[in-house]
C-alpha cells in the first residue's frame, strides 16, 4: 500500500493551520525551577515579567528599565525538537469495525479480510497523521505497536523517510492478542529516557485501573500524554436490533443476548468507561479524545492540536 493513503489530502488541509506545540516543550524552556538546559543555544524571546529576588542580573531588560523605571526580566524559550512516541494498540479488539471500506481508503490486515474500516485502521490513520505533522515540524517521531507487549517499534527519528517507515510498520502489522498496556508502557519507558510526548491510540477496552497505573507511570517519569480512544460507532451507539451471539474478539465466553434489551445498560457502561478514561487522563494532566471510526481523523486531530496550543499558551 502507499503510505499517503492513510492521510487524505483533506485531512492534511485541515491540519495545516495548526502548529504542533507540545505542552511540555523541553526541559530547558521551563522557567522557574526547571530552566532550559539549552538556554543560549537556540533561544527565542518569549515575554517580560517583573523582577523577583533570585533572578539573574543578566536577565534584566535594561531598556525597559530605562523607559519605565521598573525592573523586568526577559524570558526565553528554547526552540527545540519534540520527541513524540506514538503507541498504537494492535490487540484483537482493534479488529472491530462496521464501516464499509471505500475504494482508495487503503487498509491494514484487519480490514483486508472483512472489508470493514476497523478501529486499527482508524488508529493507524490517526498515528500517521500525527507522525506526519510532527515530522513536518522537525520533531522526532517514534512508533510502538503493542498488545500484551510492544511487538514492533520504530525508533524515534526526524528523518524524512521516517514517516514512511512508520506507516509501513502500521500497515503490515497483524492485529491479534490481548492488550496489556501496563506492561507495554513499562517496555517503552525503558527505552525512552528523555521526556517525550506519548500519544497512545487504543480503544482502551481494558480495566481502568490498569490504564491508570500505566498513565501514572508515564506521568511520574515526566512524559506528556495524549490518549486517543478509538471506538467504532457501533460500540458507541449499540443500535443492533436483532438478538445475536456475541463472540469476543479477544476470546472468552460468548454471550447470547438481545441488544435491544441490554442497550441501555451497555451504553451507560460505555459512557461510564469513556468518562473513566477521560478522568484518568485529566487526573495526570493528560488529554483524552474519543475518536469515532466513522468520522474522519482530521477534526479530531484539529481539536487535539487546538487544545494543546491553547494549553501551551496558558502555560507560557
Amino acid at each position, binding site marked *: 500500500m502507499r503510505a499517503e493513503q492513510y492521510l487524505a489530502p483533506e485531512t492534511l488541509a485541515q491540519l495545516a493551520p495548526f502548529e504542533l506545540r507540545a505542552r511540555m516543550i523541553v526541559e530547558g524552556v521551563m522557567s522557574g525551577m526547571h530552566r532550559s538546559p539549552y538556554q543560549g543555544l537556540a533561544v527565542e524571546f518569549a515575554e517580560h515579567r517583573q523582577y523577583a529576588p533570585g533572578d539573574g542580573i543578566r536577565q534584566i531588560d535594561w531598556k525597559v528599565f530605562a523607559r519605565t523605571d521598573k525592573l523586568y526580566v526577559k524570558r526565553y524559550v528554547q526552540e527545540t525538537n519534540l520527541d513524540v512516541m506514538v503507541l498504537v494498540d494492535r490487540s484483537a479488539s482493534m479488529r*472491530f469495525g462496521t464501516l464499509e471500506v471505500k475504494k482508495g481508503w487503503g487498509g491494514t490486515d484487519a480490514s483486508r479480510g472483512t472489508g470493514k474500516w476497523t478501529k486499527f485502521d482508524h488508529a493507524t490513520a490517526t498515528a500517521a497523521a500525527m507522525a506526519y505533522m510532527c515530522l513536518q515540524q522537525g520533531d522526532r517521531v517514534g512508533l510502538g505497536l503493542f498488545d500484551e507487549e510492544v511487538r514492533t517499534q520504530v525508533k524515534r527519528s526526524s528523518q524524512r523517510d521516517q514517516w514512511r517507515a512508520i506507516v509501513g510498520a502500521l500497515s503490515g502489522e497483524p492485529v491479534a492478542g490481548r492488550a496489556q498496556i501496563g506492561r507495554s508502557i513499562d517496555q517503552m519507558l525503558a527505552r525512552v529516557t528523555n521526556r517525550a510526548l506519548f500519544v497512545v491510540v487504543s480503544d482502551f477496552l481494558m480495566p481502568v485501573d490498569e490504564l491508570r497505573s500505566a498513565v501514572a507511570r508515564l506521568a511520574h517519569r515526566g512524559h506528556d500524554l495524549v490518549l486517543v480512544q478509538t471506538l467504532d460507532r457501533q*460500540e458507541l451507539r449499540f443500535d443492533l436490533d436483532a438478538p445475536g451471539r*456475541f463472540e*469476543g474478539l479477544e476470546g472468552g465466553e460468548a454471550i447470547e*443476548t438481545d441488544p435491544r434489551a*441490554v442497550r441501555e445498560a*451497555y451504553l451507560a*457502561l460505555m459512557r461510564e*468507561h469513556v468518562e473513566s478514561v477521560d478522568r484518568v487522563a485529566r487526573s495526570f494532566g493528560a488529554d483524552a479524545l474519543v475518536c469515532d471510526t466513522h468520522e474522519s481523523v482530521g477534526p479530531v486531530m484539529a481539536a487535539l492540536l487546538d487544545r494543546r496550543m491553547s494549553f501551551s499558551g496558558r502555560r507560557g
Partner: protein
Amino acid sequence: MGFLHPAIAWAGVASVALPIIIHLLFRRRRVPVEWAAMELLREAVRRTNRRLRFEQWLVLLLRCLALLAAGLAIAVPVLDGGALSGEVRRLVIVVVDNGPTSALRVGEETELERMVDEVRRAVLEAGAATGGGSAGGARDRVGVVLAAGAPQLALAPTSDAGAIEQALARVEPSEMASDLRGALAFAAATIDTEKAAGRGAGELPRIVVASAFRRASVAEGAAAVAAREGAQRIEVLSLVPAQDVPADVRVARVDARPAPAGDAVLVRALVVREGPSLEAGQTFVRAVAQGMSQPPARAVMWEKGQAEATVDFQLVPAGLAADARRIGVTVSIDEDRLAPGNTAYTAVDVRRELEIGVVGRRVSLDASDLERVPASLWASRALSPGAGSGMRVRDIDPSACDARALLGLDAVVLARPDLVSPDACDALGAFARAGGVVIVTPAGESTAQSWGQAVFARLGVTVRVSAEAVDRDPPIRLAEEQAPSSMTSSLLASIGPELSALSAPIETRRTVECSGFARGEIVLANADGSPFVLAQAPRGDDGRVARGLVVVFAAAPELAWTNLPVKPLMVPLFQELVRAGIQMAAGDNEVAVGDVMVGEPNAVLRGAGGATLTVSPDGRSTEVVARAGLWQSDAGAIVAANLRGDSLALAPTAVDAVRALLAPMGDVRIREVDAASVQRDARGAGDQNNP
C-alpha cells in the same frame, strides 16, 4: 361451562405452544456477532439479566395467554345462563307450539297466550335471565317458527324488537296438528342455514321452545329430535311442560248418510271425553244442516268412567233445494275449556234422483225366458225397480259409448265390456277419474273374457280378470260372514246388519278369477275367500289415487252365472253400490285439517271466514286445509274438514321425557316458572268446566 366451538377452544390451547416454539427457534437462529467490548457487554447483560429474564418470561407468558384467550374467546364460552361475555349476540329461534291444544283455557287466558308471555320474558326481556342483552336493546336476532301444521317460519331472524313483538302477538292457536319434532328440526335447520349463509357470525344459537308438551304435541314414546351430527350445539331453553290433565269433551266423529228410504239423512256422532276423573255428568249435542230440520239437542248422560258415547240424529228436509246434491252437517257440543273439538262436520249426498247409464245390448225378451236376460237388464231393473227409486237408468249401446253419452251420468254399469271400443274405455276411465262410478261385470254371453287387460288398464285400476270364466260345480256361495273391509263398510254400510241374511242364498256357478287387488278392496267375498265384488279407486297418470270408483263383479249378474239377480240382495246391492259409490267417488267427503284436499279439478272451495282453497288440475288442493269446517264449491261439492283426534290429546308429558326429546339438539334448560300457579289455575278452570 362449555364452548360453542370446542374445536377452536382446543386450537386456542394448542396455539399456546406457538410463542414457545418461536422463542426456541429464535434462540437457535441467533446470528453470531464479533464484538470487542465484551467486558462491557457482559456486565450489561449481567446487570439486566434478571430483569431481562423476568421480562422475557413475562412477555412469553402474555403471548401465550393472549393466544389462549383469543382462542377461547372465538370458541365462545358458554355458561348455563348464556355466554360469558355480555356482548355475545344470539340467534334465537322461538318454536311456538300453537297446535289445537294451545287453545286450552287456563283461567282468563289460553295456554298459548301464557306461553307467549313466557317467551317474551325469555327472549325480549332475556337480559337479566341469561346475562345477555335484550333483543330490543342488544343485537340478538330472533326468529319465530310455528309448530302447527308444516313447520313454518313466521318471522325470519331479525333484531327488530317491534317485529318480534308483532310476530308473537299474531300467533294464534291453529287447528292443524302440532308437529313439534318437525318444528324443532326446522328451527335447527334455520340456524344452520343462517350460519351457512354467513349471517350473524359468532352468534350464540338458541332455541326457545314454547310448548306445554301435551300428548298432542309429543306422542307417547316419541323418538327424540334427530341429532345434528357435526353441527354446532344449540342452547335449548324450554318452558316447563304442563303436568295437569284437564277435562275435555269433544265430538270425535260424525257420520251421515241418506236414509235407505225417504229423504231423511241419518247422522251419528261419536262423543268422547278425557280428564283426570271421568265423573258422571251430561253433555248436550246438537246437529244442524242447511235445508234440513234441526232436531232438539240430545243429552249424553255420562256414567262414571264412561269415555265414549254415540248420539244419533235424523234430519229431514226442511226447505232443501230441489237440485241440492250435497249438504254439510255440523254436530257440536257446549263450549268447554278446549274449543277445538267441540264441533265436527260431515257432508252427505242428498240428491233425490241419480242418473245411471247401463252399457249393454238391447234385447227383447218375454217373461218366461229368464235364463237369457242379460246383465244389463238385470242391473237396470235393480237400479230402477219402479217409480220413486231415486234413480233413472239410461241405456247405452256399447258402440255408442263415448264421452258425450256419459255426460250427466252419476254412474255407469258396463255390462258388456267385451263390446266397447278402446276409445269408449278411455271415456269411461276419464269418467271414473272425474268422480264417477263404473260398475264392470263380465260379459255374460261367453266364457271367454279377453277384454280384461284393455278395459281395466284404461279405467286406471290394477285389478285383472282371467281370460276364461271358470265354472263352479258345486256352485260357490257367498261367505255368510263377510270379513270386515274398508270397502264393505263404506259401500254396504246401509245393509250391513242384513248383509249376512241377504248373502246366504247367493250361489255362483261361473266366475272369472280376479287378481291385482288388495284384501281391503273386496266388497263381497265368496265362501272360499275369492272376491265376488271388489272395488278400486282409479289412479291417475301420476299413479296417485284420485276420485272415482271402479266396482268389479267376478260373476255376471245373469242366471247362467249366479242366482244373484233373483235374490233379495240384487236390488240393495246395486243401489248401495251406486249410492255409496257416488259418495265415495266424489272424492273425500272428509279431510283432516292439515291434509291436502282431493276434489273436483280446478274447483275453488270456500270455507268459514272467507277462506278459500284451490284444487289444482290434478285434483289436489294447492294448500293444506288449515281450518275445520265445511268447504263448499260453486258446483255444490262439500267437503267436511275435521281436526285429527290425536291433535287434541291433552295428557301431559313428563319433564324427563321432554329433556330426552330435546337433548340431541344441545344443552337443554327448562325455564323456571311458577308452575304451581299454572297448575292451580288449571285445576280451578277444570273444575268449572268438568261435565
